[in-house]
């Protein structure tokens, strides 16, 4: 019988696949990435803090694995395929966890955000509106939508501790 944690992962798959597909741009690479991340997560499940967001923990693992493959491919040269890179990433037992988000972190960050930034973020990222539709709905130019959206996401990333370091895969 599947463990509770494994059932959680399976239930998260649609969102993990969406995330991985956004990162990689290719469905086959995305699913490979998700599979490796889930294996990594199962081995490291004791490091996940109950009561925090499992999805954000998984996004962090997926993101770190993906960036690792890019680093390795760059070092190894263009002939190394992504499967080999993922195998290597899986074997080295590198720390990939952290970034345990509380359940209210995003909501709280949004509440603190300036209104003009939050509104754009809600339209695009929560209500899935296009930039153009958001611009129309708010009566502002698309360029303004984009600059506010970028600022909103940078602010959000900073607030929840998602600031990318120079290394990229260590501390979130």
């Amino acid at each position, binding site marked *: 019988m*599947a*463990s*509770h*944690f*494994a*059932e*959680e992962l*399976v*239930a*998260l*798959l*649609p*969102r993990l*696949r*969406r*995330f991985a597909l*956004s*990162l990689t*741009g290719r469905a086959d690479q995305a*699913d490979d990435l*998700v*599979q490796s991340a*889930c*294996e990594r997560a*199962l081995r490291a499940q*004791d490091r996940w803090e*109950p*009561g925090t*967001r*499992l*999805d*954000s923990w998984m*996004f962090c693992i997926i*993101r770190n694995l*993906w960036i690792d493959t*890019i680093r390795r491919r*760059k070092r190894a040269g263009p002939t190394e395929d992504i499967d080999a890179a993922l195998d290597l990433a899986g074997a080295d037992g590198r720390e990939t966890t952290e970034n345990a988000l*509380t*359940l*209210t972190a*995003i*909501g709280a960050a*949004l*509440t603190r955000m300036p209104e003009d930034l939050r509104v754009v973020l809600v339209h*695009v990222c929560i209500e*899935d509106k*296009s*930039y153009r539709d958001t611009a129309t709905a708010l009566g502002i130019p698309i360029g303004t939508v*984009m*600059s506010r959206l*970028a600022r909103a*996401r*940078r602010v*959000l*990333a900073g607030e*929840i501790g*998602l*600031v*990318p370091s120079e290394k*990229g895969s260590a501390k979130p």
Partner: protein
Amino acid sequence: MTRGPVPDEALMALADGELPADESRTLRARIADDPELATRFATFVETRALAADPARAQSDAPPPDALVASILRRDAEIQARQPTAAGTTRPGLHVVSQRGEREVLARGVSARRGWQLPLAASIALAIGAAAGYLVTRETAERGGAVVVSIALPQDQLQAALDAVASGDSRKVGDGTITLVSTHRIASGEICREFEFARERPVRESLVAIACRRDGSWRARFAIAGTMARSDVFVPASGSAALADQHLRDLGSPGPVDEAAEAALKRNAWR
């Protein structure tokens, strides 16, 4: 073609699917070759993924069987290495209403960590929106953490609460909502108790109360009815009992009868 620095907004547009196909391809090729660019790009993808409505992904094509199987296989291997696996005792369950009241439904000790309810679709994104997200959330200071939230498509949920009579059901999202009863509480608000159940991606059910205010239904209370795991079972009747207790605490004299409910519905639940 320029190989200059890539502005944040281009990365963001790629993350949001707003770049034309040829620009997307070009930019992805650059990202695949540049860890720093990839890191910046990933931040835009991640902030969107964290803020997004979790219900949206449920309408994607289901994951390939092979992917699910690989996870379950690895899980079985790991469990096989742990002969004293968790799950043999009944964990404690704390119910938390939105007003912070706590009750304990069942006590017990988890072999590993505290009680966990299905968190997979459970993102508490409370930004003042009406009941598209059913939330009873709080990290318990003691013992296990309990979060119950199943994201439902907001518009479908609102419509169901408006239209479905108590005792009837309707498909909402990837499951079914069944309306249980309607109450007028001490504040004068109309509240409706309902259950939501689904089989995929995991079997889970929820008993909840939503009250109508300012033209929309807002979640007041929710508790898991059943768990995905069969060895950790909270009978739905227990959840319903707690929901009923909560309604009494809110000052309901009991459910309204069929005729009264029909009248309320005609009057837009006022």
